[in-house]
């Protein structure tokens, strides 16, 4: 059982959060949608597991490396 951070790759705005705590996710599942330079991009799960915590909300401005969510792996 390990905890993995899902981080934002670059500065931008969170448009949508697509998961909630307790959700099971597979690797490369979309966790949230980030907007930067008028472009929307999905941020995906780095590994499979269960969402332990979601740390951002839609509309929030985020810096690079901000932790979006924490995944608990089996």
């Amino acid at each position, binding site marked *: 059982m390990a905890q993995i951070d899902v981080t934002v*790759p670059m500065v931008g705005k969170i448009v949508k959060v697509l998961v909630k705590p307790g959700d099971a996710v597979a690797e490369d599942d979309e966790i949230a949608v980030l907007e930067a330079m008028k*472009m929307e*991009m999905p941020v995906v799960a780095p590994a499979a597991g269960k969402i332990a915590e979601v740390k951002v909300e839609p509309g929030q401005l985020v810096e690079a490396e901000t932790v979006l969510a924490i995944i608990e792996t089996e």
Partner: protein
Amino acid sequence: MTSAGLDYSEFLRNIIDQTGIAHMSWQYPIMWAIAFFFIYLAVVKKYEPLLLLPIGFGIFLVNFPLVQLMGQSEQGFPNLFQFFYKYGIEWEIIPCVIFLGLGVLTDFGPLIASPKTMIVGAGAQLGVFVTFTGTILIFGIANFSLQEAASVGIIGGADGPTTIFLTQALAPHLLGPNALAAYSYMAMVPLIQPLIMRLVTTRKERTRIMKQLRPVSRVEKLVFPIIATMLIALLVPQVIPLMGMFMLGNFMRESGVVARLSDTAQGALMNTVTILLGLSVGATMQAEKFLSLKPVAIFTLGLFDFALCTMGGILTIKLMNLFLKEKDKMNPLIGAAGVSAVPMASRVAQVQGQKYNPKNFLLMHAMGPSVSGVIGTASAAGMFIAMFASVHAPLYVKDAGWGYVFMTLGIRFVGVFIVLGLLQVLMQLSCKIVSKFAKP
């Protein structure tokens, strides 16, 4: 005047003669169709609507008989569009004012964080120089002069104002088709580039993840436009009207103390001149000037040019990767952004990168090649202007000779690499100095 009846018919004939209907010819409807095509691209397809809409409508407006929009009035004053064209484009004011606004909109951060991407902006000028040669070679039948060929070549740099600036300087009669080709293909970057990307990269290369860019300090961002201006002014003084304004705009942005000026430069001012630019470009396309072989050739060559520039950028990265350590290797997709087309080409790199690897975020990485592409294209334009500075008549290859063409071209393509290479070195040096003295 023999009878009242004759008077009456002559009177009627005069009235009809004063309308456009009596002077219609087959060329006008053809030009309307061309105008409607670009208006369609703008309105329905949303391809560069800010430019293609006013250009399209400009074409439409000037292509009626008796309409006095271009040329001089009987009293010798310029007519409405002639006025926009003369003071805006012939005097080369508008492209430079637009560059001021683009400077405000440009963030050099990603380039400063990854100076090696500077060279990609030079590699992406490949098409510009190849097309120059190709224009002379393939379209010998349309009889392009060397100046005309240079103005066609620059289209692949995907930079509207630079294309207009250079065309006005070297071959003003090609302004309409060149600007249209540049803006149309720029709008089609998302259609053209993915094909080229797939052609010249392997799946493994496309999935490569690049490490995060380092944060860039304010001082570094302030120093960059100054160094770049200095270097460009010394090496390619011909493009200082464009690049000086660009760097001023960028300095205004990064200074953070003239928010009001920055707002105006990137908003109201740029929008105002964009309308005048679009109309003027459209207005140059009167039937008698436009309906010839050259515009067709320009559109064909422009596409080829775009593809080659995209390829040039990608291949430059692949070449650089041969010399880079594994952890520093770059994803070649960002090379495509070396055709400036800010920020569209970077978005294409992002979309394609994420398509092959969902964890890949290339958007910011692609901005480096993209903004250096702006400098690269402007440098190439400066070199072309310098090349023909002392030539006042159209120069043809049969007079100049192929040796001259290839020699000067080779030297100037290398010249673009030298300009951007030096800029990269200066940038790295200044960053080192800045990081010694300034707190991060």
